[in-house]
């Protein structure tokens, strides 16, 4: 039964490139992540703390990027006053700096904090 379920899943591909390299590029987030951050299984307290930090900071980083993206959009739309732009920019600047400190504290790079959720844009769009 397990095998049948798996087969059905595979049948979703209607057309794909025959070139393996191209296929790899389409393969998506899990493949991408695997190549970029090879992991070892290490069961020690430090790594548990680091993993938790990574999860939390990933969410924070995601929110920070969403906020920035939305701020840029508002600036481009011309719906903010100069004062608001300055305040917004200053806050985002501090946020980015603070994130940098936290990342350094836990030894986490940008790649490790990337949550590939694809088009989250539909969460932020249409808010003007």
């Amino acid at each position: 039964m397990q095998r049948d379920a798996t087969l059905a899943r595979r049948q979703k591909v209607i057309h794909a490139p025959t070139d393996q390299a191209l296929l790899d590029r389409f393969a998506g987030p899990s493949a991408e992540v695997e190549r970029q951050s090879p992991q070892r299984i290490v069961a020690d307290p430090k790594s548990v703390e680091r993993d938790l930090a990574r999860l939390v900071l990933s969410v924070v980083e995601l929110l920070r990027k969403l906020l920035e993206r939305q701020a840029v959009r508002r600036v481009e739309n011309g719906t903010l006053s100069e004062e608001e732009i300055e305040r917004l920019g200053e806050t985002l600047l501090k946020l980015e700096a603070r994130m940098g400190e936290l990342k350094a504290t836990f030894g986490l790079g940008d790649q490790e904090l990337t949550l590939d959720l694809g088009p989250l844009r539909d969460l932020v769009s249409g808010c003007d």
Partner: protein
Amino acid sequence: MTYVYAIADRPDEPLPSQSGLHDEALAKVICRDVVAVVSAFDGWRLSKAEDELWRHEEVIEALMSDRAVLPMRFGTLLPSRQRVGDLLCEAYGALVKDIERVRGHVEIGMRFLTASEGRSEDDPSVASSCRLPPRGTRPGSVYLWAKVARDRELQDRRRAKLSLVRAAYERLASHANASRLDDEPDDRQETSAAFLVSRDRIVSFREVVDEVANAHPELALLCTGPWPPYSFVNAGERATSGSDDCHAA
């Protein structure tokens, strides 16, 4: 709590025999002529996220065998069936419209890769090629305006990439009842599109995909489906500002 898989028509039809997430039985919440298909959720977690996603999908596909179905976003949890019913009634008009639009159709997905793909977000050359002068004198404004400039540069690049994909997309769109081209692919490398294709035209659509692939050797195409019409439902969502190329056939 209540997990919601989909909203569909024909509330009186029996539900498929398959079970939902964590093998919970499926149940109905009905409001007039629409039914939300739900199951109980009590904080469990399955071992593999992949299995959960596929189970969600399988419930929806089982429903699609004899109904018009609006798939819910994965992870839709509401406090109670009562609340589900309330929301169904609140969004009733929009839901009925969406159901009508997707009836007898499936979604086919396309992804396009061009030869010069790169992770433009992290591309250092983007920063250096920004032609706009820095604006403002105070730190916050300088920071934010620099972000705006970078954003504009990225948008220009996206537009250039899109023009390469346009012809292929338009050709495919002419064989679908509705289509959308994702012109804001942020972290993803590919440009993607979705097509609402009527069930009896799936086979001919596949042939067009092959033709388009042959006619555009400069593009790599990935076509998948049939899928439930995730990309063609709007009820309950805020309007998106992304490009929504909906053509009527």
